[in-house]
């Protein structure tokens, strides 16, 4: 047993996660709650103003509506530092090594040091490069990961007041559109570098992204079909109430079983007529149950399809052909150095986080507790939560520092997202890189037909089952 290294990895994860999300939490609270209520004189314990001037109210409001962007700006760099370190340490575990453990307290500060080093490196523009495009490319690469992730914020924070403004009725489509922009930046970077390796890397990334976007989008479209909406907040809302309601298990096809399970298990009064309710969820006697089962298989496959497509979309191993070191030096970012390279790096890891959050929101119920509600209700949690609530009530009620619902939603989202990130790292540690023709074959001959078949099957199957939508 390798308890020491596993312990170190978990310690690292816990430390960095608390740093990351603590910083985001404090920043959001400070800008979104504390300063506005302070200047408008609504802060308890501090000075009270009765009638703030409209200018002050306007400033407070402006601050509040800037909170979503601010939270992302705080979150992205710290998170990227954590993810790089997490990836390196996890890969070290998988390859029976130790990983970076020198800098700071057992390697905790390694990526911080790396970041400082990168920022102080000379920023070189190669001769013959198109300087304007060369500079523009990292910006275009990075910007979508900021504004593209905005609608997700409301979804992962249980529709918190501060993040509501960022939500869009076309949420998931907006995210997908934003996620497709970085390809332009990659081609641009490849072309502007005046380097053959970069150009080939950029072209490869374009070819790959265009082919893998189709299964990716098709899988999400199918999920939206089951949910009946494009709004991510609504999609999360539908999946509440335990693992059986999540989209990965049939997109609500099992929620009938979820509702009826307590009656069957004699947890509530057995006199209730379950068959009527069963008929409500599964109208046709046998066919509906079979179709629910089919839907479960389909959604699980769609989840895999989404993960595969997302992996290719963000150029991670085994789809990292655009930056295949053994063939293309470093692909599109061969010529980049200093802060521009840092931006590429940042955006890559942010993209990994964003696609994992999309998977969480679309398939894994967002910030939902995986334990079914009827079990949760049985557990003696009430006194504990009441005690905690009264203990922290100055924080919750007066300072509005903690919103319990948001806290738990964020907690579960963090657990789910980083599990997916961990899985991506595991895949990176396991699978070798595709060859370009295999990549295209796999995308066009396997994934796209599979996605289309699943789409059709889901369309038919859901006519017999009552799903979320």
């Amino acid at each position, binding site marked *: 047993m390798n308890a020491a290294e596993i312990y170190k990895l978990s310690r690292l994860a816990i430390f960095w996660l608390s740093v990351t999300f603590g910083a985001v939490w404090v920043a959001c609270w400070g800008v979104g709650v504390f300063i506005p209520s302070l200047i408008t004189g609504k802060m308890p314990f501090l000075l009270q103003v009765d009638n703030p001037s409209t200018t002050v109210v306007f400033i407070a409001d402006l601050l509040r509506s800037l909170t979503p962007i601010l939270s992302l700006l705080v979150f992205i760099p710290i998170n990227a530092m954590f993810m790089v370190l997490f990836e390196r340490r*996890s890969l070290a*575990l*998988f390859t*029976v090594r*130790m990983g970076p453990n020198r800098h700071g307290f057992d390697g905790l500060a390694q990526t911080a040091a790396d970041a400082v080093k990168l920022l102080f490196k000379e920023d070189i523009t190669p001769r013959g490069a198109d300087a304007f495009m060369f500079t523009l490319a990292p910006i275009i690469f990075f910007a979508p990961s900021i504004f593209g992730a905005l609608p997700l914020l409301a979804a992962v924070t249980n529709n918190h007041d501060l993040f509501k403004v960022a939500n869009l009725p076309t949420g998931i489509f907006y995210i997908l559109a934003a996620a497709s922009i970085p390809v332009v930046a990659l081609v641009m970077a490849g072309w502007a570098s005046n380097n053959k390796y970069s150009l080939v890397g950029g072209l490869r990334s374009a070819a790959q992204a265009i082919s893998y976007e189709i299964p990716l989008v098709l899988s999400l479209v199918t999920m939206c079909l089951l949910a009946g909406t494009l709004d991510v907040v609504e999609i999360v809302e539908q999946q509440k109430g335990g693992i059986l309601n999540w989209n990965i298990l049939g997109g609500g096809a099992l929620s009938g079983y979820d509702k009826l399970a307590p009656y069957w298990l004699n947890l509530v009064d057995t006199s209730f007529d379950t068959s009527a309710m069963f008929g409500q969820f599964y109208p046709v006697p046998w066919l509906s149950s079979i179709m629910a089962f089919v839907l479960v298989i389909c959604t699980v496959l769609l989840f895999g399809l989404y993960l595969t497509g997302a992996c290719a979309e963000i150029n991670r191993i085994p789809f990292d052909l655009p930056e295949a070191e053994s063939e293309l030096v470093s692909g599109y970012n061969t010529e980049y150095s200093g802060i521009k390279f840092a931006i590429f790096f940042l955006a890559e890891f942010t993209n990994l986080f964003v696609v994992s959050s999309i998977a969480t929101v679309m398939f894994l119920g967002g910030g939902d507790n995986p334990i079914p509600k009827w079990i949760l209700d049985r557990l003696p949690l009430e006194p504990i939560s009441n005690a905690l609530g009264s203990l922290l009530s100055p924080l919750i009620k007066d300072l509005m520092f903690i919103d319990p619902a948001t806290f738990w939603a964020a907690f579960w989202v963090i657990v789910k997202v980083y599990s997916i990130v961990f899985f991506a790292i595991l895949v990176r540690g396991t699978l070798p890189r595709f060859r370009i023709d295999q990549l295209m074959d796999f995308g066009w001959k396997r994934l796209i037909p599979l996605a289309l078949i699943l789409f059709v099957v889901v369309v038919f199957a859901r006519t017999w089952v009552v799903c979320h939508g």
Partner: protein
Amino acid sequence: MANLLDRAVESFKRVGEGLKTVFMHSFREPTTQEYPEKIQDLAPHFRGRLALAVNPDTGDHLCISCRQCERVCPDKCIEITAHKSPETNKLELIDFKIDHGLCMFCGLCTEVCPTTCIINTNDFEMADYSRESLIYDIKRLTLTQDESTYYFDKKELPRPKPKAAAKPAAAAGAAGAAAKSAAAGGDAAAKAAAAKAAAAKAAAAKAAAAKAAAAKTDDGETKAEPKAESKSEEKAAEPKADAEAAKKDVVEAKTEDITAEPKADAEAAKKDVVEAKTEDKAAEAPEKDAKKDVKEAKADEKDPE
């Protein structure tokens, strides 16, 4: 279609198997070690830094200046300076240089050495600040008696026979004087060349230098002293001293240009030196002859060019 499904299931299984295997690796102890804290126990025949062993029993230098190693070295990074003693008619080692910057640690030199003098040690931490300091001279190369014993035991080499002839006691006085000055020179060189050299090594270097100086006193007692003092104005007048000085020049000429034929015999080298001298300013020549430091000599040689 069924075939396709079979293959899909099969490949899923394989990928799952792979993921499981890799995940299970995380429960294994790391096979790597944290280097500066833990240093791997190296195999006896690990090919690290080269060194010249002395006889573990008597402390005599083992090299017989046969130049086998010099000849076999594919990189031509060994350079031996030796001369034939007029009295015993045997080769005597003056200097032995290995450029570890060129060496590829193939170990061929250790294979051919007839007296197992040149050996690969287990030392691999040779990082240094300049290329020049990677050229190890005889002082830095020669091991102490203890170290030699350690490596002879570890590599299970046969113990060499002690040398038959003892040193002539007649030259003891002169040798003592020479040894002192040479030791001083050796000390300075050691300081300049390698600050990290262990004290034991420095001591070994002193001893080796003293021995070499003593060997020189055997053939020319009177000339050895002024030469060791590193300033000899009357050298130009004395023909014998000139011969000695010319030999030293050979060393300098060679070190100046490592790519030059190391095997070039003394005659040709001497001629070269004479030519070089005629090109140089006459006044500078004698001073240059006396200089022992290779680097300084190099710098001087570069000036007229």
